[in-house]
Each structure stands twice: as structure tokens, then as C-alpha cells.
């Protein structure tokens, strides 16, 4: 049996008296594209924050390709192949677009500047940002900022990408382009966990959808199974939905 790329077992996170994650078990294989959904406050972003090293866990284990990730700093996990984007774009606004890319691309200390620049320009071209390479990130539009954040995540050559609400406030045409890129990276073997309130995007892109509610996984199945699961409908619409 092959080792899962990401294996979460009995994960617990509490904020004071509030249990944000209640012994969550989740196993994700290499090359999967998994949608993570749930109402506000269900624990989705908390889960991402623990996997990417921002929050410590109060219990349980997380293994990436068999190696424990708990206790490691975000920069160590980034170098270990776990990339992520944020719900609100976090660009280095006073750096140029290319400098934003190089900060990520040279952080491992082993890549040459020429190789990193070539990779950066390739990714910027892939995301239609190459003509803006020498512009300051502050001058980008909201959509271009989202694309730059995508490109920057890919500079780390990640094995897993955690995408937190990438489609928020994005024009439908740009959203279509982002769908294509996400599908292409996944087809190239990158494992992706996608958080979104945009059900259309989740059901279109993901073969597997995991639903969280009050810190528990209430459904783990295909888009059809998720759509028809009474527990999911209860979580989103309340118990009196039917």
C-alpha cells in the first residue's frame, strides 16, 4: 500500500472553550484534487493553518509523505513541499512582480539566480503576467494579484498546494482561467486542497469533496454524494431545510 501524501489523524484544535477541530481524520493521496467545504466557522481555514504550520495542534498527528509536520515552522514546511495561498492576497507590494517570485524561488538557498529567474518568467508567462514582471506588485489589479500569488506558490515547486478561497471577488473570465491552471497543475501531479464557498468551482474541479461542520468531517465523497448528503444540506441550510 502506498503512503498517503497527507495523512491527518485525530487532529484537535481548541481556541479557549471552542473546539475548532474535533479529532479530524483525513487521508489524501498523491495527485488528488480535494475540495474542502463547510459553513463559516466549520474549521476549514484552521485545518489549513495547522497543516501549513501557522497554528500548533492540540492533539493528533499530521504526516506529509510519512514525515510528521507538527512542530515545524511555516518556512520549513514550504521548503518541504507544502505551498499555500491566503484568503486575502498577501503580496510584497513594494517589490516588483519578478522580485515577489524570486523571494520564493531562491529561499531554499540552492537554486541559482539565473535558474530561478528563468522559472519565474516561465510561470509568469503561464499566468499571463510576464509583461508586468518589472512593475511593482502594488500596481496590480485584484485579479492580477491573485494570479501572482498562484505563480509565487508554484515557484516553490510544491508537492501539495493548499488554496484558501482563491476565487473570492474574481471576475468569471479570470475564474475560468484559474480553473484551467489548477486543473493543469493537478494533471502534472501536484496534490491540491481547495477551500471555496464557490460550489460551482468545487464541484467542477474536484473529484472528491470533504465537508466540515463544527470541526467534524460530516461527508467525504464525490460531488454527487456531497450534493445529496442530508448532513451536508443540514449544515448549510439548517435542519428544517426539507
Amino acid at each position, binding site marked *: 500500500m502506498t503512503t498517503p501524501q497527507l495523512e491527518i489523524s485525530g487532529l484537535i484544535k481548541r481556541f479557549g472553550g471552542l473546539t475548532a477541530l474535533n479529532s479530524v481524520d483525513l487521508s489524501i493521496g498523491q495527485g488528488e484534487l480535494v475540495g474542502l467545504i463547510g459553513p463559516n466557522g466549520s474549521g476549514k481555514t484552521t485545518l489549513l493553518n495547522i497543516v501549513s504550520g501557522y497554528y500548533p495542534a492540540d492533539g493528533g498527528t499530521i504526516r506529509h509523505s510519512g514525515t510528521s509536520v507538527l512542530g515545524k515552522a511555516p*518556512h520549513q514546511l514550504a521548503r518541504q513541499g507544502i505551498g499555500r495561498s491566503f484568503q486575502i492576497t498577501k*503580496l*510584497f507590494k513594494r517589490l516588483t512582480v519578478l522580485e515577489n517570485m524570486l523571494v520564493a524561488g531562491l529561499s531554499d538557498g540552492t537554486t541559482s539566480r539565473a535558474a530561478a529567474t528563468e522559472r519565474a518568467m516561465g510561470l509568469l508567462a503561464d499566468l499571463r503576467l510576464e509583461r508586468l514582471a518589472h512593475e511593482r506588485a502594488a500596481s496590480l489589479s485584484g485579479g492580477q494579484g491573485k494570479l501572482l500569488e498562484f505563480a509565487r506558490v508554484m515557484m516553490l515547486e510544491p508537492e501539495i498546494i493548499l488554496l484558501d478561497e482563491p476565487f473570492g471577488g474574481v471576475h468569471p473570465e479570470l475564474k475560468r482561467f484559474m480553473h484551467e491552471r489548477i486543473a493543469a497543475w493537478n494533471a502534472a501531479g501536484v496534490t491540491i486542497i481547495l477551500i471555496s464557498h464557490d460550489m460551482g468551482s468545487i464541484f467542477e474541479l474536484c473529484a472528491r469533496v470533504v465537508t466540515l461542520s463544527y470541526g467534524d468531517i460530516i461527508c467525504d465523497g464525490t460531488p454527487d454524494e456531497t450534493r445529496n448528503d442530508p448532513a451536508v444540506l443540514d449544515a448549510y441550510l439548517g435542519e428544517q431545510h426539507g
Partner: protein
Amino acid sequence: MSLLAIFEQALNGMIVSSFYALAALGLAIIFGVLRVVNFAHGEFYMLGGYAYFMALSALGLPPVLGLVVAAAALAIFGALVEWLLIRPVYDGRADRPEEYSIMITFALSILLLNLANSLFGPWPRRPEPLFRGRIEIGELIVSGDRLAAAGVAVILITALLLGLRYTWTGRAVRAVSQNREAAEIFGISVTRVGMLAFAVGAALAGLAGALMGPVFNVVPPMGVIPVIKAYVIVVLGGLGSIPGAIIGAIILGQVESFATILIPDPSRALAYKDAYGLVLLIAILLLRPQGLFGTQDRRA
């Protein structure tokens, strides 16, 4: 006022600005990366003066090597202070990090000042300057020690700016100062960058103290006035802004230089010199609290 007098005041202003900029840049880098207002910055300046003095008098080193020793000693000291005292500000150990950073740097300032008084005594020491004598530029006569110190300061500032702009480490420092969370997720160790920033900030303060020691004497409270000016400069330029600190230093140096000659009685004029910066500080806080290059959402 003659053209020569104007030029003389402008040159004096620029010389003073270069020292101010060196001290203020250290403060700006530390604030930019760590969001810590270092109240012990003046004492780092003072320690730089003593390190330079000791390197020359006890070790018998020439002035240029004395500067290197002062910079290295303060960088190591700054790194230790960051590791032992400042890190709780951002590693979650301090419950109230902003209050903690104020209290710990303020306490460190008092401790270092009193330690220096005990170790070196209150007597002024005058180390060897980089250059003795006078330099004549046409009818202008400038003291050599000041001009040489200003020249070194300008070289150091230029090297710092180039390093920040063109090296990966410089980009990492700028990235952390702009968005700490994002820098972490793109593989930058914010802990290492924080330590580096504090070490560089301390070294810059120490270098400013070492360069100024031969001009104004080395005494335990020598950092009090320069650090007040450094605070004025970083608020004027925008907290944490590197270009802001340089422009702020130039403005303060020129304001002090020209305002001084507006008062006819020279003894009174010098007595008011340090007040101009404070007037400038009040004006900037009233008119543009975020400073010239600061952004309104930047936390103070």
C-alpha cells in the same frame, strides 16, 4: 546671507544628516522587520563609541579596523539581544507583545546606561578620529574628522541600500517587513531575518556612535540626543521606511543647520538646535501622522 554661507550651512547640514541617517536606518530596519521600537538604540550607539575607543586604546588598532571591531561587536551584541530578549515578541511567548517590547527595550536602555557608567565612569573619552586636520574647499574650511566620518557613513548607507535591493537576503528582509506571514510561507525563516535585522540595526547604531565618538567625545549618555533625533527622523520618514529614514535625516539636518543661523546670537542659536527636531516631530504628527513615506494602515 552670502552664497558661501548658504553653501557652508548646506554642507554642514549634509554632514550631520549622514550621521543621523546611519542611526535612524538601524531603528527603521528593526521596526520594519520586527515591529519593535528599540528604546535601547541610543545605548547601542554609545556602546559603539566605547567599542571603537577600546579597540584603539586597548588593542592598539588603527581607526579603520576600530570601526570594523565596533560594527562586529554591536552586530553580535544585537543578535544576542534579539535571541534572548526580543524573540518573545513574535514567537508567542509574550502575552502582550507590544507592551513587552516597550518595557524590555526601555529596561535594557537603563541597564546599559548604568553598566557603562560603572564600567567606564562618567568621564569623556576622545578616541582617535579617522582623519585629522582641516579640508579646504575654496573658501570653505571643513574639519577633517567630520568630513571623513560623513564619507564613511555615506559609503555604509549606500552599501546597505544596494544590499537590500540586489541581494536575496536584502529581498528577504524587505519581504518580511512588508508581509511577515507571506514571507514565511514562501520559505523565509522570519526568525533568522529578525535576528539579522536586529544585528544590522545594532551595528549601524554602533557605527554611528564610533564615527561620532571622536567628534563629540564618548560618554555614557552620548546616545540620548542622537536617538531622539533618530526617532524624529523615522516618524518623519514613516515608521519602518528605509527611503523615509534617509530623506527624514536630510530634512532634519538641513532644518537644524539653517534654523540655527536665523537666530543672530550664536550662543542662543546653538542652545535651540535640538528643539527644531521636536518642533518638526509635532508638526508631522499633526499634519501627516503616517510620515512622508508611511502608509496609513501601518501600526505605530
